[in-house]
């Protein structure tokens, strides 16, 4: 067993354990912190897959932005969660059953995949994938349009989020 495999197994185990803690932890702030651990584990796996740029983006976007947003929301809505309700709904066992069935189906599917036991293809000695990624994102014949659509989507989401989260104005009362 090589060093890479050991790193993968440890990282994978930590990622999965953190993921389970995210969905099982009774305290929401703890769940958010476990989510950060899980996202960092995925970033390490990206490095193992030679996708260094994506690992950096994972850290910046997911851990730097999304996880912080989630923690802010948890803190802004904290008083309600202090009330002692169950953290999972009554039919959680149905959810567990569906997740396990889905897992079985997924595993059965991917075990039939022809490339299942594939080992990674050799990368070129000088890894140019980052340059290729950068140029393909601004190339009209390749991925310029999806890239621009993604940026417009981000802008729309930003404006939409501001508009939705605006405090209720004086005139319009809460609709209850």
């Amino acid at each position, binding site marked *: 067993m090589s060093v890479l495999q050991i790193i993968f197994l440890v990282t994978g185990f930590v990622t999965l354990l953190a*993921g389970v803690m995210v969905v099982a932890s009774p305290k929401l702030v703890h769940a958010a912190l476990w989510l950060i651990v899980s996202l960092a584990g995925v970033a390490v796996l990206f490095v193992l897959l030679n996708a260094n740029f994506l690992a950096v983006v994972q850290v910046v976007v997911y851990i730097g932005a999304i996880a912080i947003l989630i923690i802010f929301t948890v803190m802004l809505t904290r008083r309600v969660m202090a009330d002692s309700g169950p953290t999972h709904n009554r039919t959680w066992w149905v959810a567990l059953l569906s997740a396990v069935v889905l897992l079985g189906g997924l595993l059965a599917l991917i075990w039939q995949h022809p490339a299942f036991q*594939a080992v990674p293809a050799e990368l070129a000695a000088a890894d140019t*994938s980052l340059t290729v990624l950068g140029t393909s994102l601004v190339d009209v014949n390749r991925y310029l349009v999806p890239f621009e659509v993604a940026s417009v989507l981000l802008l*729309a989401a930003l404006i939409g989020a501001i508009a939705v*989260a605006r405090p209720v104005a004086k005139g319009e009362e809460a609709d209850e």
Partner: protein
Amino acid sequence: MIPLSWYLTLAALLFCVGVFGVLARRNAVAILMGIELMLNAVNLNLVAFWRYSTPGVIAGQVFTLIVFAVAASEAAVGLALIISIYRRRATVVADEINLMKW
């Protein structure tokens, strides 16, 4: 060398953990966290297939970048909705938000 199967199995496990979180948690923020886990599992799959099947074609990484953008938008809008609902109804529990439930 790490076989592709390890990545696929790990991603499937992570995805199903996320599915359980989305279906079972009552708090809307926790449901969003489950969605983030699922998106991460998908990203892991995309990058693994890029690395093992088509390392010369950059489409796998581009797709992952687009998923990042969509995940960021989804988190921003979703959390804004949750804060707005909390302001108006003082709850973030998904099954108490039943205004449009028949």
